[in-house]
Each structure stands twice: as C-alpha cells, then as structure tokens.
C-alpha cells in the first residue's frame, strides 16, 4: 500500500510555533526545513514529509494537527 501524506500549507503556518506533527509521529517522518537555502539564518520554515513508505497510517498526525492541515492518501 502506497501512502501519501499531504500537508495543506494554507492551513499550516509557521511550524516552529506548533511542531505537533513532528513530535507525535512515532517513526519521525515529518521534517521542518527552511525553503530558502540562500540564507544561513533562515526565518521562513515549513513542514514536509520524508520516507512515507515507513508510515503505518496510525493517524496520530491527522488527529493532533490543531489546524486540520494533514491528510493521508
């Protein structure tokens, strides 16, 4: 079964103020990163997901996201 974990960026703002998905995911699949790599001290961060083939679809991230920004497909 192939899993996609989709983050709606219109709903998720600056992950540094929330980080709920990063903390709750048992296999630590969420990551936060600065999209602008030109800056050494980045101010803009966003959430993304890596290694989705390790996702067990436990649903914890969907349940805990306070903004309803995460969807599993």
């Amino acid at each position, binding site marked *: 079964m*192939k*899993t996609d974990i989709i983050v709606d960026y219109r709903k998720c703002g600056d*992950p*540094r103020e929330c*980080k709920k998905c*990063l*903390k709750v995911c*048992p*296999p*630590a*699949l*969420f*990551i*936060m*990163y*600065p999209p602008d*790599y030109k800056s*050494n*001290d*980045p101010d803009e961060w966003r959430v*993304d*997901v*890596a*290694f*989705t*083939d*390790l996702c067990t679809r436990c649903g914890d991230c969907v349940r805990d996201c306070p903004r309803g920004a995460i969807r599993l497909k």
Partner: protein
Amino acid sequence: MCEWCYRHGAGQKWYLNSRNYLRETALEVGAHDYIFELWKQFEKVYLQRIYGISMRGPGYKFNTPVVGGALKWYVNSWFKKEKPLKGRNARRAEGHPGQVVPLEDAKKILKLADPILRVNCACRKMTRGVNDPCCLAFGALAEMVPKLPRYIPERGMEPLHIDEAQAFVEEMNEAGRVNTVWFGPMPYIAALCSCQQPECAATRLRTSYGLQFLYKGEYVAKVDSSKCDGCQACASRCQFGALTFNSLMNRPFIDGWKCFGCGLCSTACPQGAIGMADRVSFPALKGVW
C-alpha cells in the same frame, strides 16, 4: 579492520589515525566548503529526488526487483567516493560515510580531534524541531559552525576540553545513544555523533533501506555466560534488534549477524559479562559491515 582502515588507517583503525584529523588533511579535501554545503542544505539533501529515487518513499523504488538493487548499488557508490579529492558533491553525501564506535573508541577519537565544539544535532532539529546539542564537531566543521547559526546551541557555542567531551559521551552512552564517527569528506574526520532511532537520518538509511551510509562497528558483542547472572540490565539497550533476553538460558542472546558493535549492552552490564570482540575474530563476520 574494515576497508577504510586499510586505506586510511596507516596500520590501525581509520578513526585512530591522527592524520585524518589534521588541518592539512581538511585543506587537501576542501572540507570547509564541503561541510558548509552539506549542513546548510541538510534537510534538502534528506528530501531530494535523486535519479528518480524520491526520498519521500525510497522503499517503493528499492523494492522493485533488479532496478531496486542497481539503484542501491549506485547510491552506495556515492558514499564511498574518494575522488576527486576536492569538489566532491556534498548533496549526494559523496565520501561522507560513518561508522558505529563503542565508548572506549569514542574517547580515543576525542583525544585526536581539535577543537571540539558541541552543536545542535541536525537530524533531531529537522525531524522533531528540537535543539539537542549532542553532535561533537571537529576542526573544519567547528570552524564553519559560526556561519550556520541554526546549529549553534541556545546557550552559545560550546568548545569542549577533552575531559569534558569524554564525560559527555559517557553521559550519552548511559542515556542509550549510539556513537558514530563521520568522514567529511574522506579521509578527513569531521564529527562524532550521539545517535538514536528513529530521528537519526543515517541510521534510518542503514536499518530501513540497507544503504551503506553507516557501517557496522569494528567489534561484535559477545556474552561470557560464566559471568552473567541474568539481571537483564542489558535487555533494553540494543537499538539494532540484535539482543534479546533468553529466559530458557537466563542470559542474553546476541545475534552476531545483526550486532552493530555499539557496545551499549556491554557498558550496561554490572558483571562485565559482555565483551566487545574484534569483528575479524569471527571468521564468518569479518566481511559483514
């Protein structure tokens, strides 16, 4: 002795060869630029799509017969890349493999490295959004950290004296962290990490996908059953699924094929019943890295 010991160890283990820590060596391989590229784009390296292998779900690709095997071989060849000396591609982690080391060897490494700077772990910052200053950065990496503010701990840059650094890795060992030592790039040695699953990117690539980014250690744990009293203190220490407590024999069973030689079980044993034997002393395991 693994393949790197033969090539970069000058007769000993590669990470005990003082030449691999010298500034001269760092300059020879362009370590400053390489390290800066790698750490600056750390998350991008983790997320990127490389030759059709999306790091979002590499397992789907690696599991396809034939093609999957070829891709793995190809990706593994980047980590081992030794040439050119300068200008290897940091985004592919060319020449940047690491190896598990037990506590005693980690302490020896800290005698050779200078300066030693404690910095935020890049993997944990990325995956959990937590600043955990547990990576010990050496020489060229330590010099580049001021240019990478997100890895500077909240209480500022922390240069450690040898004794402090050794006490720190002892603490990490007690907490169940696995020490790993890193080329950056080969043969220059840039860091000693204190890793744990599942946050560590390197351990993930190795244990979930079988990529040779992280090598097994130079040792394999071995139980002396005459010393073991069955206390089970070692039972929860293994992160590699190599140790289980065997209730029939009332002692741990260590699967030598799975052991990464981290020594965490050994340091937890009050009876000194688990020794770390040289990998080459097991004829069947000497080529299992």
